[in-house]
């Protein structure tokens, strides 16, 4: 049965990559990442000047601050809110798409168990998500370095952090790694919603609505929201930024990773529980 499960994963990947909608995400990234980098290359000095205008009165900055590392960091800040949409385009369709086209009847009369099939589909969804984030990371870093070169990375939060050139790459890789975990959580949410739906529009819209509502709740500093905030996955999606602090707060990052992982486990458990009992009537 393990062989059948592995076979089911490869079949699901094959199906994912034979559909045009799969390439929308890659196309969007391949368009947006170079666009942002070219814009920064052309007009980045103005952007940097504006960001550092108060600091320049007190400090003297030397070296090339506008470099590929800063461009990659800016891309991460800009796009991580929008990537969930590209993830749900595929993961929200994994189960609902089969229900909509009636192919569930065909595949669920095969010997593979429902649990096996569902986990194979989810694994394929995670692989797609990973490739999307890998593509974004690779394109951002490689193109950024080629176009704007390397240098120290300046990050302005409540305080100003300047990371030496040789101290940046691991932080970027770790940030993309954490971002991947956040996107897996989004994938798990849309996958669960997909199991309740008969077409993929619903899961995609509901996932995005949930993310928007949770981000708003996370951003509003009202006491009524304070108790729920630590448990919302959106409160932890941005914890990749903690890699760009000194010292790195690994406890906080670990806690966020744990909460995101717990979300994935709970969401998949709910999906399994309902899907195993579901009568296939369509």
């Amino acid at each position, binding site marked *: 049965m393990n062989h059948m499960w592995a076979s089911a994963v490869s079949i699901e990947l094959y199906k994912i990559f034979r559909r045009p909608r799969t390439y929308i995400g890659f196309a969007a990234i391949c368009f947006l990442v170079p666009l942002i980098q070219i814009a920064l290359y052309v007009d980045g000095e103005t952007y940097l000047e504006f960001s550092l205008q108060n600091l320049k009165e007190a400090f003297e900055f030397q070296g090339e601050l506008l470099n590929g590392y800063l461009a990659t960091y800016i891309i991460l800040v800009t796009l991580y809110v929008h990537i969930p949409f590209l993830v749900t385009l595929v993961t929200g369709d994994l189960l609902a798409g089969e229900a909509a086209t009636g192919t569930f009847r*065909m595949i669920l009369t095969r*010997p593979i168990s429902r649990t096996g099939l569902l986990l194979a589909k989810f694994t394929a969804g995670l692989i797609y998500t990973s490739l999307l984030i890998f593509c974004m990371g690779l394109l951002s870093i490689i193109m950024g370095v080629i176009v704007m070169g390397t240098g120290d990375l300046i990050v302005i939060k409540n305080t100003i952090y300047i990371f030496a050139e040789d101290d940046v790459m691991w932080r970027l890789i770790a940030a993309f790694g954490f971002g991947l975990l956040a996107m897996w959580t989004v994938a798990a949410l849309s996958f669960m919603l997909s199991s309740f739906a008969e077409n993929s529009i619903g899961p995609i819209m509901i996932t995005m609505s949930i993310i928007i509502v949770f981000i708003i709740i996370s951003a509003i500093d009202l006491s009524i929201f304070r108790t729920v905030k630590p448990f919302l996955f959106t409160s932890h999606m941005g914890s990749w930024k903690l890699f760009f602090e000194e010292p790195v707060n690994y406890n906080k990052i670990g806690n966020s990773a744990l909460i995101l992982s717990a979300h994935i486990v709970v969401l998949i458990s709910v999906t399994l529980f309902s899907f195993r*009992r579901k009568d296939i009537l369509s």
Partner: protein
Amino acid sequence: MSNSTIIEISDLHKSYGAFKAVNGLSFKVFKGDVFGFLGPNGAGKSTTIRMLLSLITPTSGRIKIFDKDLIANRSTILMKVGAIVEKPDMYGYLSASNNLKLLSRLSGYVATNDRINSVLLMVGLSHRAHDKVKTFSQGMKQRLGIAQALIHEPELIILDEPTNGLDPQGMVEIRNLILKLNKENGITIMLSSHLLNEVEMLANRMVIIDKGKVVVEGDVVELLSGDKMKVTIGTSDIDKANAVLIESGLGHEILKIEGHEIQLQLDQSEVSKVNALLVDNGVQVDKMVPVRSLEDYFLSLT
């Protein structure tokens, strides 16, 4: 026919709230059977077939296939079963051969290109093997549906209304294919239908269900032997034909006369005799169409 039981359904129930879709169904399908599963729309045929294929869970009752409990041995059983449930929807963005390759792998069967080609040849689709399924007509999809049910060399095929939506030519092709699979490949076939004449043409045994219960079960020939069928006779000399039938004592069997057609009720054995009677009396018979409807058969049972 061998007597070993392939499917055994015992006291099967499926309820949706207060509605009982299947209500205490029991019957057996034997090895080598072409088993007709008949009933009017809404009788519970599709629900039963979905339970046989574990698409839905029975409320109560027991299903044994190949002498094993379906719930406890689902995977082992389904490796040896091929099926079409309602219309066979395939992946439109994939070719016919890729659909078959993919579905056979989900059955734990590695279909070689030769196997795929031979199955597509069997259903008359070898020339479209590499075309995307979304370009196929309904009849072609139906034939591909049969191909996916066959690809992993099953011992039992369950077909839910396999000729639904097909044109007359397509119906004939699918029926011939079903007979061929049974006779030449020895595959046991259970087919649901709401057409009694279809089951009469294909099946050796049948069960008729209504409102989720068995109405009658048994050998097709035996069950239908005492049943009269409607026969429509087409002739240009309608008055003469009518007179000949009345003279020969068949007047009370005439159901209606419309235009150039007379419809009467006859035993199967009488059909050829009436044809000869009319021809001998100089009536030109243009057509003679016997039709047996499920509705009429129901009425004869009650």
